[in-house]
């Protein structure tokens, strides 16, 4: 749809941060990558599709933020020293941070699709997509929802063992 195309139309490069394994530093790397790119003068956004364990808001000290809607969709939360990194995470939608998101696949898939197509990202040089561990619903849905757009590629994170 025109709306779907529009919200990611201004995004030049999309980078997925993946790992099969949990706890290797995906969210940490996604955050640092975004901050480094911002430092280099790029326009950056982060999409956190880890629905069960969204870590990015805390890492950028915005765990208490709320999100709003505008005509073109969800307005991301702006973070970082100059508040210039756009962030969307399910963490912002939880009433209480300790609430577990206990959803089966289909419900997760619906939200991920919304996150990908309904966020008003504006003009970005890089959109970093942080993912949960595994190769399941979130990953399949994210790649499917992003498919019409040009994916720069994936960065895979691991630890030595």
């Amino acid at each position, binding site marked *: 749809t025109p709306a779907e195309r529009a919200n990611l139309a201004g995004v030049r490069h999309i980078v997925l941060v993946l790992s*099969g*394994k*949990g*706890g*290797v530093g995906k*969210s940490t790397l996604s955050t640092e990558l975004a901050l480094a790119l911002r430092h280099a003068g790029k326009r950056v956004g982060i999409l956190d599709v880890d*629905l*069960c*364990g969204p*870590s990015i808001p*805390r*890492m950028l000290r915005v765990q208490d933020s709320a999100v709003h809607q505008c005509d073109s969709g969800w307005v991301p939360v702006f973070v970082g020293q100059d508040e210039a990194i756009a962030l969307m995470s399910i963490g912002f939608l939880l009433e209480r*941070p*300790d*609430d*577990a*998101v*206990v*959803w*089966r*696949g*289909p419900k*997760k*898939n619906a939200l991920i699709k919304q996150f990908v197509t309904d966020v008003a990202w504006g003009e970005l040089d890089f959109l970093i997509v942080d993912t*949960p*561990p*595994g*190769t*399941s*619903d979130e*990953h*399949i849905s994210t790649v499917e929802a992003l498919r019409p757009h040009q994916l720069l590629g994936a960065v895979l994170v691991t*630890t030595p*063992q």
Partner: protein
Amino acid sequence: AEAAELRARLRAVRHTVLVLSGKGGVGKSTFSALLAHGLAADETKQVALLDIDICGPSIPKIMGLEGEQVHQSGSGWSPVYVEENLGVMSVGFLLSSPDDAVIWRGPKKNGLIKQFLRDVDWGEVDYLIVDTPPGTSDEHLSIVQYLSATRIDGAVIVTTPQEVSLQDVRKEINFCHKVKLPIIGVVENMSGFVCPKCKNESQIFPPTTGGAEKMCQNLSVSLLGKVPLDPQIGKSCDSGQSFLAEAPESPATLSYKNIIQRIQEYCEQHHLQEEKIM
């Protein structure tokens, strides 16, 4: 009819312990494996280890069973035995190559988990330990649902000391409350590191918000114990050996053994209480 089938299959299981965490990479599989080894050290006990992490099954490697296949018999699927009294089942055994990705959506994963419970011939089991993937999703909902055919003694929740982990673990604790799953307690892994050369202790993952101890106090759950980082743990896991057997003198081994004992005591007490009621 399905529930009856599951009930029948699980009737011979005395105790069931789920090993959970909201967070990945905190040591669930490591702990599940060592719990299994620890309980199976008593040769009179029959122990079963079920790995329902379908995307990232670590148990075969940790138990030294990579490359093993599952055999079918008249009575169902045979678990792969590490010891005579320690049987293991994992999707890892069903893959033709360890690098094959299992890219399944929820419903297909649920189907396999149900099959594991329905079709694996565990025989008489004193302890069924279930290792889970990180998160609070299909696998977790399904295992709690399917195991309602039997009694789950409780969940052991694993974390590391830093807030980024605790954040996810609090959600897991809430998940347990939501599905009425008793919590045996919390294990704090990677809790401190003692340098083998200078013997100084460092906090590799500093507990900036009080660690598992504070979280357990706040949420009124038991802290079963803290396990320090020991590079030998990772090595043993990689080589498929029991860390408890390879490093009996390590402070981590002592911690693990104390925790395992507390879990055993909880299960036995539970059983006695139930028998009293009956």
